[in-house]
C-alpha cells in the first residue's frame, strides 16, 4: 500500500456514516459499493467509499464541482472503461453480482444500467429510430409491431408521446432541449433497464422543462432504481429519497434526503447546504 492509499484510508475512517437510512429499511439495496476508488492516471479522484443504493427509489448525489459524484456514477455502468487512464478499485455489486467481474459482459451490463447524460444527446436519426435502436441491438423485439409497441410504450412512459406522436419520423435533434432529454430517457428505458443513471439531466434545461423531467423521475421511481447527480439542492430535495454528499472525492455523508437537508450530521454537509461553499 502506497502513501496515497494510506492517506485515503485515513480519510475513509474519518467519515461518519449515520445510522442506516430509513429508506434502506423499506427497500432492498440494489447497488452496493464497497471501498470503491478511482484514479485518473496518478490522480486519485475518489477515495474509498461505501454506499448502498435502494431499489425503486431515487438517490441523489450532490456536492461541489469536481467532487467525484459523476465519476462514481459512471463507475456503476462502467462508462469509465472508455477513458484509457481511468482505474477503478474496490467492488460494486448490482443485485449481488460484481459488475467488475472479468467474466461479465460490459455490453449486457449497460443494457441493465441505462444512462441519461448531462447534455441531451439524441442520435441524429428520427425520433422512432432513437428509441428503437436499443431494443433492436439487444434483440428485444422480433417484428416491426414489437418494436413499434416498445417505442410507443417508452415514449409514453417518458411523457413525450403526446407531443411527438404525429412526427415520429422527424429527426430527434429537431426537438426542444427538454423534449430531447425526455427522448433520451425514453431511449434509456426502451431496453428495460433495472437502473437508470442520470448525470445532471436538467442542467441544460429551463425551469419548465426541468419540472417535467422531475415529474417524470418521480413517476419512474415506481419501477426503477434511479441514481441522479445534480448540482441543484432543491432538485435533490424534491425528487430523491436518499441523498449522498460528496466532497473532494470523498463521500462525506449519506442519508434520507429529509434528514440530510434538515439535520446534517457533518459540518461540511451543513455548510454546503447552507450555500457557504460550492
Amino acid at each position, binding site marked *: 500500500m502506497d502513501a496515497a492509499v494510506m492517506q485515503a484510508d485515513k480519510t475513509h475512517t474519518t467519515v461518519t456514516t449515520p445510522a442506516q437510512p430509513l429508506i434502506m429499511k423499506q427497500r432492498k439495496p440494489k447497488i452496493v459499493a464497497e471501498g470503491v476508488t478511482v484514479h485518473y492516471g496518478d490522480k486519485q479522484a475518489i477515495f474509498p467509499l461505501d454506499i448502498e443504493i435502494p431499489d425503486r427509489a431515487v438517490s441523489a448525489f450532490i456536492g461541489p464541482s469536481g467532487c467525484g459524484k459523476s465519476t462514481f456514477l459512471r463507475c456503476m455502468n462502467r462508462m469509465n472503461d472508455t477513458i484509457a487512464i481511468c482505474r477503478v478499485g474496490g467492488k460494486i455489486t448490482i443485485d449481488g453480482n460484481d459488475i467488475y467481474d472479468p467474466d461479465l459482459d460490459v455490453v449486457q451490463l449497460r443494457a441493465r444500467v*441505462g*444512462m441519461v447524460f448531462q447534455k441531451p444527446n439524441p442520435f*441524429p436519426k428520427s425520433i422512432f429510430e432513437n428509441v428503437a435502436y*436499443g431494443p433492436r441491438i439487444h434483440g428485444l423485439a422480433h417484428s416491426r409491431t414489437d418494436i413499434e409497441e416498445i417505442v410507443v410504450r417508452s415514449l409514453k412512459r417518458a411523457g413525450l408521446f403526446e407531443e411527438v406522436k404525429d412526427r415520429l419520423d422527424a429527426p430527434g435533434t429537431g426537438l426542444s432541449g427538454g423534449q430531447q432529454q425526455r427522448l*433520451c430517457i425514453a431511449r434509456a428505458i426502451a*431496453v428495460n433497464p433495472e437502473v437508470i443513471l442520470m448525470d445532471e439531466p436538467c442542467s441544460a434545461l429551463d425551469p419548465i422543462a426541468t419540472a417535467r423531467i422531475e415529474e417524470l423521475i418521480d413517476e419512474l421511481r415506481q419501477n426503477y432504481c434511479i441514481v441522479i447527480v445534480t448540482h441543484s439542492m432543491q432538485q435533490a430535495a424534491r425528487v430523491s429519497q436518499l441523498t449522498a454528499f460528496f466532497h473532494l472525492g470523498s463521500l462525506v455523508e449519506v442519508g434520507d434526503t429529509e434528514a440530510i437537508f434538515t439535520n446534517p450530521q457533518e459540518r461540511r454537509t451543513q455548510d454546503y447546504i447552507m450555500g457557504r461553499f460550492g
Partner: protein
Amino acid sequence: MTDMADSPSAKAKASQSRALDAARVRKRYRAESRFRWYGLAAIGFACAFLVLLLSDILLKGLPAFEANTVALDVTLEAGKIDADAIAGSNFNSIVNNSIRDMFPGVTSRSDRRALPKLLSFDAVDEVRSAVIANPSLIGTTQNFDLKLSDEADLFFQGMSTDEVAIPVTGSLTVEAADDGFRLTSSNNDFAGVLARVKQRLETRRAKLALQAAQLERVRDRLAAEMPSAEIAVKEAGAGATDSHPAMRRLAKLQADTASVAATLERLKAQTDQLAARVNNTSGAEQLTTVLPSFFVNLPETGVVKITGIGGNHVTGEAYMPVAATGAVAPGNWSLVEYSQPEADRRISDKEIIWLTSLREAGLVRSGFNWPFFQRGDSREAEVAGVLGGMIGSALTLMVTLALSLPIGVAAAIYLEEFAPRNRLTRLIEVNINNLAAVPSIVFGLLGLAVFLNFFGLPRSSAMVGGMVLALMTLPTIIIASRAALRAVPPSIREAALGVGASRQQAVFHHVLPLAMPGIMTGTIIGMAQALGETAPLLMIGMVAFIVDVPTGFSDAATVLPVQIYLWSDLPEAAFQAKTAGAILVLLGFLFLMNALAVVLRRQFERRW
C-alpha cells in the same frame, strides 16, 4: 466615492480615460478595416490569377473542340475498287482525285501532289468505311464531308496567320508579263502594301542593328581583355607550350574576336542592305517568304500573289488561273494580306489560297470535333483524341478508389476508435502524416521496384497505375477520415454505449455515418489529386505513346495528365490547342468530382 468623482482631478482623469477609450476604439476599427482590405486584396489577387489562367486555357483550348470538313464529290470508280476486297483497295487515289478535281487550274506536278495534303489522312478511312458499310456505292459519285488537316483547321480558326483586307478604290489593269502578271492600279492602291513592306523591313533592320550593337559591346570587351592575355603569355616565357593556360586563353580570345568580327560584318551588310531597301523610293521591292504575303483577288476566282511592288503597279504570279487580262472595275477586285510570313508558318501561300477558294465556294463546314472525344492518341493532330486518356484515367481511378477507400477508412477507424494510445500507434500516426508529404515520384519508384520488377505486373497498365496512386492517396484518406471521426461529438459515442451498444456497434451505427461526409470529402480530394498526378505514372511506363483505347485493367493505358504532358512536348501548333483542350477536359473532370463531393456531403450531412 462620490466626492472623489466630483473633484476636478478625478474629472480630468475621467475625461482623459474617455479620450483614451475613444482612441483605442478608433485604433481597433482601423485595424479591423485594414484587415478586411488585406483579405479582399488577397481574394482579388487569387481570383485575378484564376480568371487569367482559365481564360488563357479556354482561349488556347477552344480550337481543339472545333473541326472543319470540306464537302467533296468522290467518284467511286468501279475499276479502282475491288468489290471482293474493299478494305484492301486503293482509296488514296480516289480521295486525292476528288480534291484535285476541285482545282482544274492547278496543273503543276508538285501542286497536284500538295493538294491532297489539305485533307486529313483520316478522310481516306472515312470513304473506305462508308463503302465497306454500303458496297452498292461502288460505281457512283457520292458527296462526302471529309475532314481537313490540322493545319487547315488552324488556318480557318485564324491561328496560323492574321487575314487583313486592304481597302482598294481604283480600277485595276491586268497585263500579262514575263512570267506572271503586271497589275496597275489607277488610284495608287498598292502604296499601302509598299508602306507595310517597308515598315516590316525597318523593323527587321532595327532588330539587326540592335544585335549588331550588342555584338559590338562583346567585341570591345574581348579587345579590352586582349592586352592582359598578351602580358600573361609574355610572362609565361618562350618555353610555354600551346597547352599552357595563358596560351590557351589568348588563342581563345583571338578566335572569339575573329568570329565576332565576321558575324558583325555580316550583320552590318544585312543592315545596310535593309536600310537601302527601306530608303529606296523609286525601285521595285521584291516580296520574299520572310515578308507578309499579299494577294490580289480578281474576278472569277483568279488570284495573283504579289511578288514585287513598284510605284502604282505590282508584279505577281497567278495562284489561281486569271480569267482575262484588261481593266477591272473598282469593287470587282480586292487586296488581302496574310501578315505571318510564309517562312514562319506551316501552311503555304498556295494552301491558303486553295482553302480560301474552297471556303468561298461554301464547301467548308466547321463543327464540333467529335473525334477528339472518340479516339485515342495519334501522331496526326486532327485525329488525336482524349478518349484513351479518359478511359485510362477512369480505370486507374477505379483501381485507386477500390484499394484506397476501404483500406484507408479501415485504418482510420482502427487508429481512431480502437487502437490503444501507445508508443507504437503514435509512431504509426507520425509516419502516416509523413507519408502524405512524400513526393509522388517516390511512390512511382516504389511501384516500379515492387509491382513491376518484383511481382511482374503488366507495365503501363491501369492496374499498376491505380495501385501506385492508391499508395499515394492512402495517407490523405486516412488523415481526412481520422479528422472526420474525431469531429464526431463524443456524446454520440456515449449515447450509443449508454444504451448498451458494443464499441463496434457504436462506431458503425453512429460514429461512421456522421463522419461519412468528411470521409467522402477527403476521399474525393485524394481522388482528384490522383487524377491530376503524372510523376509516379511516368515511372511505371504509362508515359508511352498508346493509340488504342484501353479495354481492361491490364491493357497498356495512359491517363489524361500524362496525355497532356505528351502533347505539350510536340512541335505541331495544332497539338498546342489539343494540349489546352485536354487540360479543359481534365478540369471538367475535376469540377465534376468536386461537385460530386458537394452533393455527397449534402446527402450525408446530418445535424447533431
